[in-house]
């Protein structure tokens, strides 16, 4: 897909590019920003999101790896949880990696704060054990061309249930789900931002551009 550059898009905005935010409360948000900038998709810009104003400005959002309890507490402490939930439920494209996938899930085993709850999946935290059990593996991702993706799992969660509208994108060898998509939402157990393979970032960038194009068509 090529980025929409015609004047038919986003009439309320004079922005030329899609603004992709990375939630920057805690975690490896800098790695996500670097990966977005290197992913080769034209027409996107990557920015950190810490405030309501920054959240309101973005066309898509990545929730990075980090500690899900920390990120959840900071979202609540700074009054971002409800606005973020509202935007995502209203159709903001969002991608959660590891802790971010936990935040997007409708159900999480063993998390004492309600996450954003926008995606019809159940996630189990620390599903592989402690840090010494963290690992790398080669994954096939549905719809992705080229060689398998080298995926890094760090104290990683897995998706234990995917609802009817959820497309499973990848499983590890034992069959457990580690990547899934539901409409404009993407969840991965692993960390594509830790490797030099930026295909997942390119995939999400195209999702954001696609969503902008379709909403522009819808409003004109």
């Amino acid at each position, binding site marked *: 897909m090529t980025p929409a550059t015609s004047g038919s898009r986003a009439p309320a905005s004079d922005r030329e590019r899609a603004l992709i935010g990375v939630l920057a409360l805690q975690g490896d948000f800098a790695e996500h920003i670097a990966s977005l900038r290197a992913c080769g998709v034209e027409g996107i810009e990557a920015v950190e999101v810490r405030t309501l104003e920054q959240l309101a400005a973005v066309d898509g959002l990545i929730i990075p790896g980090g*500690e899900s309890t*920390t990120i959840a507490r900071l979202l609540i402490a700074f009054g971002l949880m409800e606005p973020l939930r509202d935007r995502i439920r209203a159709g903001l494209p969002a991608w959660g990696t590891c802790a971010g996938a936990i935040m997007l899930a409708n159900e999480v085993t063993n998390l004492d704060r309600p996450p954003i709850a926008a995606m019809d999946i159940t996630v189990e935290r620390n599903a592989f054990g402690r840090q010494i059990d963290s690992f790398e593996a080669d994954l096939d991702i549905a719809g992705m061309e080229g060689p398998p993706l080298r995926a890094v799992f760090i104290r990683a969660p897995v998706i234990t249930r995917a609802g009817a509208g959820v497309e499973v994108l990848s499983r590890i060898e034992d069959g457990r789900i580690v990547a899934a998509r539901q409409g404009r939402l993407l969840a991965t157990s692993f960390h594509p931002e*830790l490797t030099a393979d930026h295909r997942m970032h390119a995939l999400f960038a195209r999702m954001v551009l696609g969503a902008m194009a379709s909403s522009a068509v819808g409003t004109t």
Partner: protein
Amino acid sequence: MTSNGSTNGTSSHASDTATWTVKAGLAQMLKGGVIMDVVTPEHAEIAQEAGACAVMALERVPSDIRAAGGVARMSHVRMIKEIQATVSIPVMAKARIGHFVEAQILEAIGVDYVDESEVLTPADDVHHIDKHNFKVPFVCGCRNLGEALRRISEGAAMIRTKGEAGTGDIVEAVRHMRSLWSDIRRIQGMRDDELYVVAKDMQVPIDLVRQVRTLGKLPVTNFSAGGVASPADAALMMQLGAEGVFVGSGIFKSGAELDDGTASGHKKMLDSQRAMATAIVKAVTHFNDPQILAEVSMEIPDSMRGQSVSSMAPSELLAGRGN
């Protein structure tokens, strides 16, 4: 698995544990966060509730280690396991410099990171632990770029500037962070042929010096430690280039005067410590926003009384251990 800091030594298997990417990767997940020293499961619970991204299990916080004197060792295994059972965030624990058996034990009980720490009494005054031999990743302290790169060459997957633990005085943390960045900036301005002398003078591998020049930063995550006692201190270290902070005595030695031995006094102290912990977490996230830092600073109790490093004898300083 390879042990030379790269992942390309062996052909790609379906699944590999303990790779460099996996070890360094956990530290990357901790960035923008606060790692809190805790000595009890009760502290660990407060730390997690306040938003700590990890806890460091210790027998005593550094200021108590200073006060008590004697030999400071790895924490009791039972206590570490109780803390692991209490929280879901990563649990780190300290081993003495050079004490590779303490590290083996910590790996065996599944701690998420080992801190080979100058805060404990060194077990070896010459050698550090060969950290490549472990599946568990290590964090080590440094006062300058040379120390940092020597630790990384030994296998450390995360670095923290040392500061001076248990003092509540930020001056050493600032000195070490400034020294580190000043050396990094100096290297960035050098010609290729000048890097050999840097490697020779710092007693570090030339490859790591080249990496630092290319990246413009350390090749692993770098936190600040040793002296943070307020949200402002934490934000100062972040603005000076830390990617996160360790806080030890600054939280669980604050508000000690509130504990008058009664149950309500104890609760007041814990509430006060909870407020300090929460405020420091918020300050690290918004370290560049003075307005939010001011709001956050409204919520805190008095910081620990502290001890000025300039009033201390050289023999009392911990940072010189393991250089």
